[in-house]
């Protein structure tokens, strides 16, 4: 089965082609939604078959079918597939969320008319290239797909390109992630210089990797992680993600919550065999993750746009995953356990389900109310029962309340970070940041839930529950968000399963039974600390937004007031970029523009003018007069003869 895994991206791609080129009347239902669902579902079935096979123990790492495309000297550029436990998890995440989002779109995008064809074509292209990204077996192939998902993200953020804010958000996302992409490319080039290959199977061999000079390995891995910073919206390149909410909510759910933004985390996890060689890089990864988690959660505390709350929450949760990967590297190095790594991947999967759920719920709310502003909502719980309950499940999951999925993975993440503190004290600080984030997460999620569904309507609307086509995916995702954390206990356990993909780095794989795991989790006092904080966050949100008569203005005074202003301005990071771009980059670009306009363009235009003129001059010879043609043949012949007999020998060639 695994050798057919290349078919997974092919199905959505075929759907993309069909939707793009078929005449309108053959697209029938919803301008191509049928083809889209078909393509996504076919890929889903194959993905499930793949993970089934991987769970039964077979992988394809470096021994899969290869397609040699280009050979330049000793370098060959090949396309191949790489399927291990990590790939399988990513495939399932992308296919489940992808299929459900496409189904949901069938109703959500109904009002878009002619543009739906473009929407479905772009969504299917995205799903296809996202699969391509996760099954790549070398950095170059991965980079190509990496760029393609970026392109699709750009196209879909700018779906309503007539709106200036959407157009500029699309541009911003594209440019900011491009900063990361360039770093990634530089990292790849460094690796290539020292190893001479970009195939994972070669690079991940620990002897090969050890041959790279240490400082260069640190540089390469930090640069590769730079790609992840851009794509997974980590500090300081995180500001594009909230702006990306200008796209349709389905796009936010699929690309900017569940799949593409995970590509950075995936890249970091994939590069583990390299990162292990450079502990300094691991520390860098962990610090970036911790800072991002705390920073983004704090901004989410005051956001009033429902999608922006979720966007900042996504950034914060991605920070958790990055933090866990950084800490996990230390655990692999010094404690010989894959605990942090498995926690990150488990959180990646859980987060994909509950955050996609939350976004789709938000979409359902926006669909009903017609605004993103939570200040204008309220009291929707009674009218939108399914949406409110499924969103409650999602909120409980992200807040980390047992037995919902988020609890298990978040607990594993924090435990791994705390454990890593034994080897470097800075992890204790990062753990404190993580635990503070737990409180904030619970607070802002329930602030959002209460503002939306509880109380009385704060503006005039006639909301009603969304159609079945939308609530059906919500219910599926809610079920997944509730139970996906139990993956920890399925058969040999998630940890044992996922450690298979970094098996070469561990000396022995620890086998833990379900009772062992439960014993560790509930025997640890720290678990209760985070539980209490989460409950406290929910309680505070309840007090502030549900109990009538609570005076929220107390926070608007003194230090907390100033803090609030800072948060509302997103810690001024966005402003800093704007100023920086305006002052520094703009001045540089003015100079560059002048150079381009007068020097480069001058040369090019000169050539074009010359080309056009000479084209016209040469064309004059083309009179249509056949005697002239014959004459020119004779002249050409004579010139050639003179050239060969006299000029060539004389020139000394």
């Amino acid at each position, binding site marked *: 089965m695994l050798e057919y895994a290349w078919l997974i991206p092919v199905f959505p791609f075929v759907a993309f082609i069909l939707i793009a*080129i078929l*005449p309108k009347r053959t697209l029938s239902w919803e301008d191509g939604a049928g083809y889209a669902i078909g393509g996504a579902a076919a890929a889903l079935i194959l993905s499930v078959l793949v993970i089934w096979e991987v769970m039964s123990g077979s992988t394809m790492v470096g021994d899969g079918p290869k397609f*040699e*495309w*280009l*050979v*330049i000297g000793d370098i060959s550029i090949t396309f191949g597939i790489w399927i291990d436990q990590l790939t399988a998890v990513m495939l399932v995440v992308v296919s489940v969320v992808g299929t459900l989002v496409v189904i949901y779109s069938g109703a959500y995008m109904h009002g878009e008319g002619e543009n739906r064809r473009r929407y479905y074509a772009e969504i299917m292209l995205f799903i296809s290239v996202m699969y391509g990204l996760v099954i790549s077996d070398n950095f170059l192939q991965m980079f190509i797909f990496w760029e393609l998902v970026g392109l699709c993200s750009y196209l879909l953020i700018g779906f309503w390109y007539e709106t200036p804010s959407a157009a500029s958000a699309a541009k911003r996302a594209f440019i900011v992630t491009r900063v990361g992409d360039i770093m990634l490319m530089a990292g790849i080039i460094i690796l290539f210089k020292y190893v001479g290959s970009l195939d994972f199977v070669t690079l991940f061999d620990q002897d090969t990797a050890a041959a790279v000079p240490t400082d260069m390995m640190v540089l390469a891995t930090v640069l590769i992680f730079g790609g992840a910073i851009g794509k997974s919206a980590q500090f300081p390149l995180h500001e594009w993600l909230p702006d990306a909410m200008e796209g349709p909510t389905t796009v936010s759910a699929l690309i900017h919550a569940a799949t593409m933004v995970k590509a950075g985390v995936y890249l970091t996890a994939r590069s583990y065999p390299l990162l292990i060689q450079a502990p300094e890089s691991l520390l860098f990864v962990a610090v970036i993750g911790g800072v991002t988690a705390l920073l983004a959660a704090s901004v989410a505390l005051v956001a009033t746009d429902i999608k922006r709350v979720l966007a900042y929450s996504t950034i914060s949760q991605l920070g958790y995953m990055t933090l866990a990967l950084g800490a996990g590297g230390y655990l692999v190095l010094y404690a010989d356990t894959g605990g942090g790594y498995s926690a990150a991947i488990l959180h990646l999967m859980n987060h994909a389900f509950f955050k996609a759920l939350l976004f789709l719920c938000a979409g359902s709310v926006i669909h009903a109310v017609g605004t993103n502003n939570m200040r204008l909502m309220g009291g929707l719980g009674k009218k939108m029962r399914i949406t409110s309950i499924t969103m409650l499940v999602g909120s409980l999951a992200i807040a980390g309340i047992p037995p919902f999925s988020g609890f298990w993975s978040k607990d594993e993440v924090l435990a791994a970070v705390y454990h890593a503190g034994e080897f470097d004290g800075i992890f204790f600080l990062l753990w404190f940041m993580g635990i503070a984030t737990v409180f904030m997460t619970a607070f802002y999620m329930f602030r959002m839930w209460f503002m939306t569904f509880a109380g009385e309507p704060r503006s005039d609307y006639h909301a009603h529950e969304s159609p079945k086509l939308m609530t059906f995916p919500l219910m599926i995702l809610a079920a997944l968000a509730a139970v996906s954390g139990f993956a920890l206990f399925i058969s040999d356990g998630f940890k044992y399963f996922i450690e298979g993909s970094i098996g070469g780095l561990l000396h022995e794989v620890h086998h833990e039974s379900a009772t062992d795991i439960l014993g560790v989790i509930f025997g640890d006092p720290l678990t209760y600390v985070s539980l209490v904080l989460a409950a406290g966050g929910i309680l505070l949100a309840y007090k502030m937004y549900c109990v009538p008569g609570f005076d929220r203005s107390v926070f608007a005074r003194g230090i907390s007031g100033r803090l609030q202003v800072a948060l509302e301005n997103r810690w001024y990071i966005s402003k800093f970029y704007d100023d920086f771009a305006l002052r520094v980059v703009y001045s540089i670009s003015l100079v560059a523009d002048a150079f381009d306009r007068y020097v480069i363009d001058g040369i090019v235009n000169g050539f074009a003018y010359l*080309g*056009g003129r*000479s*084209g*016209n001059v*040469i*064309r004059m*010879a*083309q009179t*249509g007069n*056949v005697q*002239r*043609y*014959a004459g*020119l*043949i004779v*002249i*050409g*012949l004579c010139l*050639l*003869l003179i*050239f*060969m*007999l006299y000029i*060539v020998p004389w*020139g000394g*060639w």
Partner: protein
Amino acid sequence: MTVLSMLEPFLPQLLLVVFALMMPALDYIFKDKRILAAVALAPLVGYAVMLVAWTLAGVWEPPESEMSLIEVDLFSGLFALAFVSVGIIVVLGSPESIRQERNHGEYYALILLAVIGMTVVALSTDLILLFVGLEVAGIASFALSGFSKREKRSAEAATKYFIVGGFSSALTLFAISLFYGVSGTTAIADMGPAMEAMFSSFDGMDSVGTLATVMILAGLGFKVAIVPFHMWAPDVYEGSPTPISALLAAASKNMGFAALFKIFLLGLLVTKADWDVAVAVVAIITMTVGNLIAVSQTNIKRMLAYSSVAQAGYILMVLPIGTEYALAGGLFHVLTHAFMKSGAFMVVSAMGVRGVGESLNDFKGLRTRSPLLALAMTLLLLSLAGIPPLAGFASKFVLFSSAVYGSLDPGPSWLIWLAVAGVLNSALSLYYYARVIKYMYMEKGPEDRISVPRLTGVAILFAVVMTVVLGVYFDAVVELCQQAAGGLFNP
């Protein structure tokens, strides 16, 4: 050696002759002229299947030829495959394109005869037989270019083509007789050593050799349309029925290259130092002039004609580089050019069938009028411009990189300039190819839809699929071409 065993390697050609002779008679029998096309298609497809089974699949080997005049090798096989494929595309696209005309039987007979001539050129190892092949193909194509008798343009094209063509044939024949004079043989493979012996024993003979070389370059340069022997091409391509333009641009041109490769790389390799600089200069001038004039064309057929001139310049690089790898690149580009150029002409033909003109403005808004035609044209033009992963990129890549490799020791270092010129020219050519795409996708045109004529559509599909496939299976095709090239250099 019996007559029959002598003729055995010629069986496909004989089959084509039989069908060609049948065609005028069939014209009287069948009212529906599409049947004629179907009959003409039969031997072509048969030959193509045979060639594919031999060259690509390797399930069959042709019989060894007992005649010294021909050589059935991979080199000739690949060329024949290009000719027959173009023949198939042209025949498929013809019934709809020439349905207004009379005498369809003659038309298909002439196409089959032209293909016979071309394949004979690819097979022959003797100058005399080679000339016979050139003439068979040439005369058939003179008649074909004037086939739309009621159109002035077509008659004018035929006249010009005939006069210039006759002149060039005379040059070719004169060159052949001079070669015979300085070498005493007409067998291409024996020419080189014989000429060397002659030059060393008689003073001044090498000038005669040079004269013959220039004349053969001029005579065959007419077929492949290199500057300054290209002037007829735009007029003739524009005036001929569009499928015939495809035949001339994609097959007749390649026949010229088959002859050039054989004569220069098999026969004249010993005197390479005398002619390589001159041919390189001609190649650079050809690609530059072709691209420069193409930029200012507003008629698509003329634009494609000048683009053909430029492509001839690229392929001509093979002669001065003169390595096995270069010849493999040349063969590869011959194959890809056969498909992308004939495909592009067939798109123009399809639009002509639907009453749309052939000027650049007529391509405005083609995206909404016929998305499939627009997509096909886009792929073909991008391939012509050399955009990966299409075939045009792959073959140009091999060609240009062979110039780079050739410029390394022990080759002359100036060969690098061929690669530089090629790359710069490719950039220049992108301008006019992309302009058509811009017209199709960005500009607003008439609202009415164009339906794709069915048979022409099949022909276009074939060309497009091959253009993509040859690019994707880059490696395998290059290997095959290298094998064929090796066969020519070390028989």
